[in-house]
């Protein structure tokens, strides 16, 4: 396991009302993860902007925050992506906007494009806050995928660093996998048995993965597994919302093309409807 998955944390610093909250969140994470912060501003360098950003991050200097401010003129998506590559950013933080209804968050088109194209991990914050809010409960996907182990590692790492108390690993079981249509009592029984079998198998698989996570990260964390039945990618977000999780950790999508956006799946669902803060591990 990578003992420090996030060495450099990047954040797009646009001058919006959320700027201070966004930077505070990023700076706090850097301190927790012992990482360096890179503030990426899309636009020409001016001294005024630089001092303004410096002032915001100033309170964290006492906690030995290392940071740099970079100015990247050009088209926002490209500039930020190229900056993540140039400065070897491991984790990019993006803030979400809020819909008219106070309970719903969505992610703007720029952030969405970045999420799709970035080669590093992404943290989407639904409600950045100047004061720290304790992260208690982390939900992480337990998909049968080569990347899942890495995602799980990262989730435990984050839980450990942020002092979270609970991790729930969610196995999403698709209808296709059950493959029994429920028509009558007989097929209902068959489907039930099949589901239990799949749940057990999935549980075993996840337990195997959990056992590979170093014990130091599992200390003082309640680990739970939960099988849910629903649409892959969407239902995990719904679940995180139902149980009131603070952070959802997911695998990065393998690839997205035009059709994926038209018929959203996996991560695209989460992007249209952020249930909570989402961490996408690349």
């Amino acid at each position: 396991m990578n003992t420090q998955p996030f060495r450099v944390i990047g954040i797009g610093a646009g001058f919006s009302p959320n700027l201070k909250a966004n930077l505070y969140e990023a700076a706090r994470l850097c301190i927790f993860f012992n990482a360096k912060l890179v503030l990426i501003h899309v636009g020409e360098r001016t001294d005024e902007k630089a001092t303004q950003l410096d002032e915001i991050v100033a309170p964290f200097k006492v906690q030995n925050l290392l940071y740099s401010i970079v100015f990247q003129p050009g088209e926002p998506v490209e500039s930020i992506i190229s900056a993540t590559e140039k400065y070897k950013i491991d984790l990019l933080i993006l803030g979400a906007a809020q819909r008219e209804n106070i309970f719903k968050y969505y992610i703007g088109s720029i952030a969405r494009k970045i999420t799709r194209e970035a080669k590093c991990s992404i943290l989407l914050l639904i409600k950045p806050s100047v004061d720290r809010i304790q992260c208690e409960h982390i939900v992480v996907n337990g998909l049968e995928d080569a990347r899942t182990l890495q995602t799980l590692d990262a989730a435990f790492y984050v839980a450990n660093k942020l002092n979270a108390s609970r991790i729930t690993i969610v196995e999403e079981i698709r209808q296709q996998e059950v493959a029994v249509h429920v028509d009558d009592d007989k097929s209902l029984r068959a489907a039930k048995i099949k589901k239990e079998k799949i749940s057990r198998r999935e549980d075993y698989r996840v337990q195997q993965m959990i056992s590979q996570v170093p014990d130091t990260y599992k200390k003082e964390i309640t680990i739970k597994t939960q099988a849910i039945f629903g649409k892959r990618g969407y239902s995990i977000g719904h679940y995180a919302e139902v149980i009131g999780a603070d952070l959802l950790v997911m695998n990065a999508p393998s690839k997205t093309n035009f059709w994926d956006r038209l018929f959203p799946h996996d991560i695209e669902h989460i992007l249209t409807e952020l249930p909570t803060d989402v961490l996408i591990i690349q």
Partner: protein
Amino acid sequence: MSLKENKIASVFKALPKNIFSGFVVSLIALPLGLGLAMASEAPPIAGIITAVVGGVMVSILGGSHVTITGPGNGLVGGLLIAMTVLGPFGAYAAIIVSGVVLLVLGFLRLGKLADFFPSSAIQGMLAAIGLIILGKQFHIMLGNRIKRDGNIDYLLEIPTTIKGAFLYDDTGFTYAAIAGVISLAIMVFYSKIRNKYLQLIPAPMWIVLLSIGFSYYYELVLKLPNPIHPAYMISNIPALAEIVADIPTPDFSTIGTLPFWSSVVALTLIASIESLLSIKAVDKLDPQKRRSNINRDLKALGLATVGSGFLGGLNVVTVIARSSINVNNGGSNRSSNFFHASFLVLFIGLFSTQLTRIPLPALMAILVYTGYKLASPVMIGKIFSIGREQLIIFFGTLITTLLVDLITGIIIGVVITFIIHVILTKSFTLFIRNVLKPNVLMFREAGGISENSYFVSVKHFCTFLNFYKLKDKLDAISEDTDVVVDFSMCEFVDHTVMENLHNYQELFSKRGGHFEVIGLDMHDTKSEHPFALRRLLPIPNVIKNSLTRRQIALEELAKDYHLTYDAQKSTKVHFLETFYTFTTKKIEHITNRLSNSENIINTFDITFSEGELITKEIIRTTMLIIKLPNEVPLFTLDKEGLLEKFYSLAVHKDINFKEHSDFSNRFYLLGDNEIAIRSFFTDELIHFFESNPYYHVESNGKQLLIFNKERIASIKEIKALLDYGKRLRQVICEEVITL
């Protein structure tokens, strides 16, 4: 004995009962079949052919258990148009094709298609069909055969016919009208007379028997011709041999035309809706609690319709009235449907000449009555009580169906429903944005009241447009388990969904399960009816119009347990602030309070958020408070490891008991005064905690606060909570509270 042999043995054992119930059903199927066929302008025998073919084929191939198949009332409207536009032979072709379409629907597993129609629109359509039947047959019932263009014209002329009935020159017509009126009276008053001999024979059969008896009385006793005009007698009931010889050849020449296909669509649509509604309703009646295989039944109905069409019969559908009579008379498997068909063959074989002694008006009275039942004012009243907007949908569909046709009618019904939903929610985007999203989440809850408890959460909106997604999930749950459906994240729930959920509720409670709907307490309704549509209120604290089903259940619970119930929202929550849990939380309000007379035991739903300004996460849950007679130490007890969720600063030390390792391992006990706590936690108390389900228990010195889930509790969970609190108090202070 193997399982299969066992099954066969039980079928044989049930055979006598099924033969009997098949016989009783055939008594009704005979006159109804004749009447429905005539109402559709098909030869009367077509109805019997439909019932026979349907009964034989569906009983062999079908997937339901106690249903009866045959000609249906709903199809009369569609068949009428097919018969008049395409001619009888063209209509048979349309029936055959609609059977094929039904078969295909069954293979494509589209049994759920009927779920896409709003229930008020379906009711409007059925009422329109009722009015079509009633309007047309009323005139024949009173001996006045007329031919008009529109369905409305028939209805408008009813008063003229009534007046005319007193002024016939020919007494033959007057007698016909009298036969009709007496028959109608039999239909109306039959159910009101409680006499076991009278009730042995169903009302339609009484009409048949009485009119045949009347005819024989004139012929044999009075030696006079039948006074009823010969034009108003059933003609041409062929004998069995003739039926076989005269099988019509369907005429497929119109297959390329629009009227042909619109007939096919109308017939398929109504046949599937009527059948699926009936199957759903009959499943609830099944004493053996079996689940019908809808798609298999659809296939069987399709195949039977094809067969029936080729033999000169009509569409085969599952019929609710005959099916429920079947269940009431002890029908327990599909063989009763088969026997009902066999008895019909027997009747036609033995009594085909006697059947021509039945006067038409008598038969039509049966149809007028069924037509009236479909469109009765009682039903309109029911719909009105659900909400005024349902009435708009109902009448919109009804009038369009009468004026134009069935397909347009149901389409208009769907459109009106959708427009009303958009107006009520003031949001078009809510539907457009979310209609394709998989908005239903289901998972098995660990640590629920029972091992088999499922939690289903629905997001965004839930209406006829996407109910099938919820239904898919619910159908995958066996009915003897516990289900909680949570709508708190759902902004809009319509009447169709509420009604369907009610059906699930009934089904689950009949089969030993428990089905509960939560999260609707924050929604507003237009009426007090439990099926009324509900929309999430943007601003809480508005006075609500009605209680939700859960609140009604709470009210009942209160009565049952001698508690007082208060549904009103209250912001007087200071009494909670002495509990450690709430020191860092902001309590919004409490609702649905249950308390006993001395206020010793107290439950409520509470809404709170974490922290004053950062409305990070809003939590709704149900809590219990019990008052204690004497002072106890301050402590907090929860599942090991879970407590940190509630205490951001986990600086407290877990108090462990050496002699109770199980308790110490499983529970996390906090408190400042360790000595007092140790003496308070007696062996008896620790045993109590060890042997009961987990709850979060915390004391503020005088009271105990008990809760366990971060969501609103179901009624069953509240009962469990009350019981737990009661017993806990008993252990602590050896004082019994009576509930």
